[in-house]
């Protein structure tokens, strides 16, 4: 307990940064994943092609490589400069969006084709067909795998520690400088991650219950 209490400042800063990375990345990757997921079921071949290209390219690249690109490649491109934290958020968002797009696409596929056909037959165009008819029915099937992706995202934030972002994955290094035993520190870090994941699991259960009633 002393290890935690004596280094509370490191823990607080670390997990606060982790949460910042997680919340922004979850938000951006969900929005981007939604767009890419819809592209992949679009009736327009160019959109489908782009969606497939993006998913295959980014999903098949190791996350660490994407971080390398944003940490070392991006600043040389002469584009607007971002802090390392924001570069980490961008890397995590682009990467996670591919998984979210695939989760959503499999969710869309659980909705019988007749539902979309009926929506098109009354004159709804593609986007309202998706948002008004297909997505509300896909959500329930999507919640468990979607939460798994978010949990993976939460843990992936620790890779940012290797790129000068002081988040939870970096706590051990800072604590070691003060001579704290690494094993105990890491156990505490793991404990807080479990707490965070349990919160996500709780949200998942709530959402599943809510959408079950909606049927």
């Amino acid at each position, binding site marked *: 307990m002393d290890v935690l209490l004596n280094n509370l400042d490191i823990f607080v800063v670390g997990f606060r940064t982790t949460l910042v990375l997680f919340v922004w990345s979850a938000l951006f990757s969900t929005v981007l994943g939604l767009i890419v997921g819809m592209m992949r079921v679009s009736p*327009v071949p160019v959109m489908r092609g782009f969606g497939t290209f993006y998913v295959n390219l980014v999903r098949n690249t190791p996350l660490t490589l994407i971080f390398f690109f944003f940490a070392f490649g991006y600043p040389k491109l002469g584009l607007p400069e971002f802090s390392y934290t924001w570069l980490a958020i961008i890397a995590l968002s682009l990467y996670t969006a591919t998984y979210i797009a695939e989760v959503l696409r499999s969710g869309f596929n659980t909705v*019988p084709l007749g539902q979309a*056909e*009926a929506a098109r*037959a*009354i004159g709804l165009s593609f986007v*309202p067909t998706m948002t008004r*008819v297909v997505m509300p029915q896909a959500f329930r099937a999507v919640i468990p795998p979607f939460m798994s992706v978010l949990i993976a995202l939460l843990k992936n934030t620790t890779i940012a520690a290797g790129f000068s972002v002081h988040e939870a994955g970096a706590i051990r290094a800072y604590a070691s400088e003060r001579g704290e035993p690494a094993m105990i520190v890491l156990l505490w870090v793991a404990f807080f991650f479990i707490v965070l994941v349990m919160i996500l699991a709780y949200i998942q259960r709530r959402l599943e219950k809510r959408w079950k009633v*909606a049927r």
Partner: protein
Amino acid sequence: MESNDQGDSADKRGPASFETTSNPIAAATGEPLVIVEDVEKYYGDFHALKNINLTVNKGEVVVVIGPSGSGKSTLCRTINRLETINAGQIRIDGKKLPEEGKALAALRADVGMVFQSFNLFAHKTILENVTLGPTRVRGQKRAEAEEAARALLERVGVGVQADKMPAQLSGGQQQRVAIARALAMKPKVMLFDEPTSALDPEMINEVLDVMVQLASEGMTMVVVTHEMGFARKAADRVVFMSEGEIVEEAEPEEFFTNPKSDRAKDFLSKLLTH
């Protein structure tokens, strides 16, 4: 739709009417409304539609019959481009079917479609099923759309079910809601793709009754069905398809009593053996 329409849109034609075609008088004039020209359709190597030519005039009820796999459902679905075609063209009210996007959506809004499996929106109430199109596509106000929807549901005999979910209704009731949903868009033409094939026998008539009434009010209809009774009663013309081709077209009485082609004779004889 537009404000100058509102004056005569409500109850002018009396409670028995479905209030559907914008100009019921046109029913008698018989101008071509749906024109299918030289249409070819393939599924891979399978030639599903072979050189299809068909004209449906305003106010006309065309019943398409034929053995299963003859392409009749496919033909029906090409008319609002739920199936694409490989060659030929389809025009509705003078306009060629657009490829995709907003123009196609706008055209589909004018073409009502009733499916074999009803396809009511499972997550919406009966009332919401009927109001979705008018509010989202036609830009009608919610209260106005709901009033019209309730009147339509009343007329197809499911008014009391308006606030239930589709799964709580019988098949026959669901299909009548599907008809009301299509009618709510005030379509120029209605397509029925085997509307009674998924129904229990005792529910078939309640759906056919609604369709017969609709036909008698001058709605232009293309009906793919196995219900020969409906064809005799309501059709202006019977189109017989076999193996992707239109084999024979005739008035119902003529077709059923004196079929010309061997394939039609064969088909009809099989119907009568049981």
